């Protein structure tokens, strides 16, 4: 079986910042149904700072837990700080993840970035790509 830490299980059972924000300043969805892993992130931004964040998840326990942890971590950060978040930070915060689940933390970070980018591009027009560090997302088995 996939060995989850107690903390992962806790975030799975009691996800923080779960749900949606009505009239968010930005939102983004990443992943795909076909991959079995999908996530939506909603942001409220005030003075370049994330003042509220919520998520919805279609995915495995690791997906839910990493999303939950990600929202906890970024709440209160500036957009730039949040955008620099690495998937490894989340895995570490959770006390580790089974290797085959690393892509879940990737997905959480990717969705967050996409939301941030969409916020910025709505404000400022498309940015000269801070993106691409981790590459795009695709079904990990393919």
């Amino acid at each position, binding site marked *: 079986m996939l060995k989850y830490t107690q903390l992962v299980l806790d975030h799975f059972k009691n996800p923080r910042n779960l749900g949606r924000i009505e009239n968010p300043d930005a939102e983004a969805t990443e992943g795909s*149904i076909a991959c*079995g892993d*999908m*996530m939506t992130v909603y942001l409220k931004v005030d003075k370049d700072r994330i003042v509220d964040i919520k998520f919805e998840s*279609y*995915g495995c*326990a690791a997906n839910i837990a990493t999303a939950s942890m990600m929202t906890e971590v970024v709440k209160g950060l500036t957009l730039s700080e949040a955008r620099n978040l690495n998937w490894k930070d989340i895995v570490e915060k959770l006390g580790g993840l089974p290797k085959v689940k690393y892509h879940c933390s990737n997905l959480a970070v990717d969705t967050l970035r996409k939301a941030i980018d969409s916020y910025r591009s709505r404000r400022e027009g498309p940015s000269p790509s801070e993106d691409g560090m981790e590459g795009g997302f695709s*079904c990990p*088995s393919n």
Partner: protein
Amino acid sequence: MRVFLDNCRTTAVIDEVVEEMKKYLTDKYSRPDGLYETAQAVHEDLEGARSFFARSINASSSNEIVFTSGATESNNLALLGVARANQRHGNHIAISALEHGSVMSIVKRLEKEGFDVTIVPVNEQGILDLNVFEKSLKASTILVSVISVGHFVGSLMPLKEISEILKRQNHKIYFHTDAAEMYAKMPLDVEELGLDLVSVSGHKFHGPKGVGFLYIRKGTKIEPIMYGAESFDRRRPGGENVPGIMGMKKAAEISLKDVKDNFSKLRELQRYFIERVESEIDDVLLNGPRDDKRSPYNVNMSFSFIEGEAISLALSLEGVEVATGSACASEQLKPNYAILAIGGDHERAHGSIRFTFSRFTTKEEIDYTVDKLKGVVKWLRNISPLSPKNSGR
């Protein structure tokens, strides 16, 4: 409360089986090839077990039973052994699309050895397409392997019809079935079904892990996959796992005694389970056939908008242990091939949960499971961006 509904993966060993094994671990520990009387006694018990298993499937001779370390080994011996031994008669092998992973891996290996393999599709119920099957047979076909019960979606395969098709061919085609999910759960008669080779695993019917057998019809050309000392069975050498074999025999005796009653009992439970889920949870899909075409030991359902690993983990936190076809639950991150084979898409595979029963499953357990399942599904749908309910919240 622990409700184990993953009985197709393995089962708990019955106390009487443990007692029987204990006897052969401590007191009757001699190996059957010793020269002394205690060894002779073990030899007789072992041959008694062999003849019991032969009778249990209506085999004509106890010599047709070869003990192995389980169904995986039985499948390997059957497929590798028959294919390699019959190469000069042809190199074509046909299997169903719902074979156990071991058979899938074995035929991949055989392809590397030059064999030509056809994977015959199943219909949307998971039942072998007999027309396509018949057409897939060639002059070079030497072996057909079709699982007795689709182990993921519970479909009963038309073994008798397959063997009738095989008998109509102009040349001998060996017929193997992986009966890990059938033996000791429903009647199995090698004469009636025209089987040449049958794989069985002890831990699927409350016997011990690490032991099984392969039925090999007399006259079958087969070569071993292991070689051993002359004091061992040439077809499968090695010091016999006597406690395992005797334990497996005890488990089979217990299971076979009321195999038909138990079948009916489980059929009822299954119907009840499916009915409750279908009436109390929206957007569920039964994977595999209904009623008579389905093994009563298996229910498999897909829950839309949510993912199976999360469902099964959430259930397990309530004590309910099940399996899922979600990619996220597999080391290879691949969606279950059985769901794809019956025409399901990836989402359906990801959302599929397999509940498998045993002779000890009770109505209370079923009720408990459905109650918990409702809560879990509701909760996960609540947090899923895919749920239509979310849009309307």
